[in-house]
């Protein structure tokens, strides 16, 4: 048995780590009329707590589908998806929605902010759905998240009044609203210029360093270097696990 004193910080983290995501033999088949399309073909993937994982691969390889399976946005056709100890494939849509609100933060490629809510309100929204604390508590927490992403001075702006980079940062603040176990981002820099994209990765880094597991999808090889581990997927099959 090793003593704690013998461990490097990395090995200590690995030893303490719990498995956040466990995908087993996941297949996802889409049917459109008579056409059948297999987006994922027997994927096995484990992600541990505190990891920063990049999923990469060419267009149509199944990256986003994999991400959707991890977040319960989509369900596997066969196989199992366990996230934070919960079998997502066995939960109802409403259970999934409530679970997601509590444990998962999602950052979409096109930001997907609600245009009728201010930056602060967009950030508070997951807390509203999860009934977290009082409204005042939620506002304080949302303010903190917006400060974290550097938007403390734009809280009352509507999405239409913010730049693309600022909108993406609001999306990250919203994703962090309920202090999720897992933060996933689908092409988080896809619509941003190089400088803003780099700043965005800095934010994700910081979030990860604070202990949140981060999984992001990208097809930009330069961004994968920012992740601790890169999983490559092609034609619905994991071709490189990065371990």
């Amino acid at each position, binding site marked *: 048995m090793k003593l704690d004193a013998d461990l490097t910080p990395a090995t200590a983290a690995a030893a303490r780590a719990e498995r956040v995501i466990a995908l087993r033999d996941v297949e996802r088949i889409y049917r459109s009329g008579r056409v059948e399309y297999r987006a994922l073909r027997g994927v096995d993937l484990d992600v541990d707590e505190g990891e920063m994982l990049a999923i990469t691969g060419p267009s149509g390889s199944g990256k986003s589908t994999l991400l*959707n399976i991890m977040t319960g946005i989509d369900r596997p056709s066969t196989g199992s998806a366990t996230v934070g100890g919960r079998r997502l494939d066995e939960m109802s849509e409403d259970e999934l929605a409530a679970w997601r609100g509590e444990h998962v933060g999602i950052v979409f490629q096109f930001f997907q902010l609600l245009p009728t809510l201010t930056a602060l309100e967009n950030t508070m929204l997951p807390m509203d759905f999860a009934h977290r604390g009082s409204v005042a508590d939620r506002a304080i927490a949302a303010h903190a998240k917006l400060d974290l992403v550097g938007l403390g001075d734009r809280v009352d702006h509507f999405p239409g009044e913010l730049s693309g980079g600022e909108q993406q940062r609001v999306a990250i603040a919203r994703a962090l609203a309920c202090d999720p176990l897992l933060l996933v981002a689908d092409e988080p820099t896809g619509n941003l210029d190089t400088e803003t994209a780099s700043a965005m990765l800095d934010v994700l880094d910081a979030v990860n360093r604070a202990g949140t597991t981060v999984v992001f999808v990208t097809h930009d090889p330069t961004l994968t270097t920012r992740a601790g581990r890169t999983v490559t997927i092609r034609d619905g099959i994991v071709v490189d696990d990065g371990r």
Partner: protein
Amino acid sequence: MTLVRQPSALTRFSWRQLTRHPVRAALTIVVLAFAVVGAWLFAAPYDFDATMNERVEADRLHDAILFPDGVRLDEDELATLRDTSNVERLDVRATYVTEMVVGDRTQDVWLVGVRDFADQRVNVVAVDSGRAPAAGGAGLEALTDPVNARNSQGAGAVGETVTIRSSRSRFEPVSITGEGGSVYFSENSSEWIPVLYVPVEVVWELAGYPEVFTQVEFGVEDRGDAALTATTDSLRGQLAGLKPSVQYNALVEVRPDGQWPGEEDFDNFLVVFWVLAGMALFSAIVLVSSTMTTLVREQGREIAIMKAVGGRRRRIVGSYLTTGAFLGSSGTVLGTAIGLTAVNLLFNYFGGLMGVTPGWTVSRFGIGLALAVGMGVTLLASMPALLRGTRGSVREGFDQSGADTSFGDSRVDRLLARADRLPRTTQLGLRAAARRKTRSVAIQLQVALAVGTMLGFAGALITVVEISEQSRSAEGGDISLYTSGRGKPLDYRAAGLVADVDGVDRVQPIVYAQALVGDTDTFAWGLPPDPVYRFELSDGRWFTADENGRTARVAVIGPALARIHGIEVGDTVRAETQAGPIDLEIVGIDTTMVGDGQALFVPIDTILSIERRAEPTWYWVTTTSRDTGDIDRVATSIHDELERTGYAFEADLRYVEREADRREDRTIIALILGLGSLIVLMGMVGLVSSMTTNVVERTREIGILRSIGARSRDIRRVFRAEAVALVLLGWSTGIVVGYAIGRIIIKSLSDSFDVAFVLRYPLWPIVLALVVTLLLALMVLHLPLRRASRLPPSRALRYE
């Protein structure tokens, strides 16, 4: 190789716009169809007018009728009258109102005598089925009017025998030999009592007339007012020359130039059609415009793609217009099928009221109007959205992501942003409504139209029903007794005998005298100072016993007469009567609508002195019991008593007349309610369409909400808040719209009755409208929302 002609890709694109959102397309088609139905309703009166004018020609309708008090005329004398200058056609007839036995009860019947069925010159009674009744056979025969059966007024079917009371109080059997009629009598009958056409000899036989005629009906060559008046005077002169003692029962009846019987009533009713047609059209414009705006806005990216591959703006607009044309033509076909059926049913209903069967007609005007509305409205309402939506550059189009629009610019947005105490789901719903302002205004307008129509029609109906009921209850009297036929006329002695009949509470004399005030043809009612009639004065007083005793020239007038001529208490009014002109001082103004609100109420002794009559010949009898069976028994006892003492009279049961009035009211109410429901339904179809589109269009947003933790009930709350807000806004606008519609209808009724009706606008229909609209909106939302909120977020997010 065979070349198969195929539609272009652009045409296919246009067509697939419909199949892509089939529910939205179907709802738009339904609303367009309603607008087309409105167009058919709009066209209907013109065709009906043409049909009725044909009938007027066929029946050789009179231009005027004289009502002599029974004149004997032989063929030579008739020829003399026909030779009068400007007389184009002339005929004489006798009519008689008596009673007939139907089942176990007696009811009134109007016998219209025809001099010769084979040679009729005016108001020709045509035989539609069976054969014309003959005179001088073994038994009496009659022709029944089709209106009788239609009005549920049992008057015997062809082949049956009915029994009719003669002036000698004997019930004579009369065989019904056929069905037919003349539009003038049919129309009169539909508002009154059943009519039977008989050889004039049958009238003479049953009425006990000594072979006299009571009507001189004629048509003229020159229909100018002056020429007609001159001809009427000439005829009266000729008649006076032939029969120096001739008296008249009534003033001359003149048919307004070019008008068919009942046309005025029909025209009054048309206002309902105009309101409906206008609303249908408006609703369709709003919906088509909103549908096309949505379609174009959500396809900004596709429009950009078309531009990128070489599509010019004109072609792109054209492709969407083709989509509009598909919608328009489908709506036109559906609307024409419904409209044509509705119009023909209405034609036949109204025609039936006048004894006319127009049959099934397809009018060219209707087709033209339906096409103009169905296609024209669609294309015109689409244009603004298309021009706006195709204006931008390719880059702008590619940048556009769906139907998103900005929020936060307007004052309303800012106001809503400040309402942060509301639950977040409610805030989201309200802000969504504010974000799509055009759509929200369109929904609000549709709700407002539907609610407004509901309230406007309800208010107008409540007003009409209350006024009718008030008038009916004001008149009083359970049995109406009047002198009829040849024999001893009713007098005060008869009234005394009636008063002694068991079950009689009171006998009130009444004298009716025709009077012309200005150009208003009306009746002066001679009543005692303490009448059974329950007046409700808005100004002045009722006349006194003293005024009656000294035959003072005073009168109380109805509200319509006061309004038409601007008469006030204290004014002196000149009335033309059979006995010549009289001046009456107005002492009071009544509020009831008895006699269409145009009656003159004069002390009974004053009328008797003016008409140089000794005693009244008409009485209202009030019975001690309200039970109809008891009233029937009292009527029979009165009959027996008066017949025993040799009086020539008729007795009408007032409750039967009142019930007939109520039946007529109910028919009109049912018709108006039916048509009103149509527009409400149309408004609601618009609402369904807009709400469904709204949910479908925001499926992606639902996906986002689901992704960040919203449960189904959260989603439902968002949309419910939006729907409730829009319904509340629409409903409150609808209250104002309804009041305006009610005022328009009541104004039209007021104009047609020449009276100032005041619209009743009670609270309960307003509350009911709110409940109904809210429930309906929530029901409407239920299905699309259920579908959208159950959609897995992965699919919702991919939704375009």
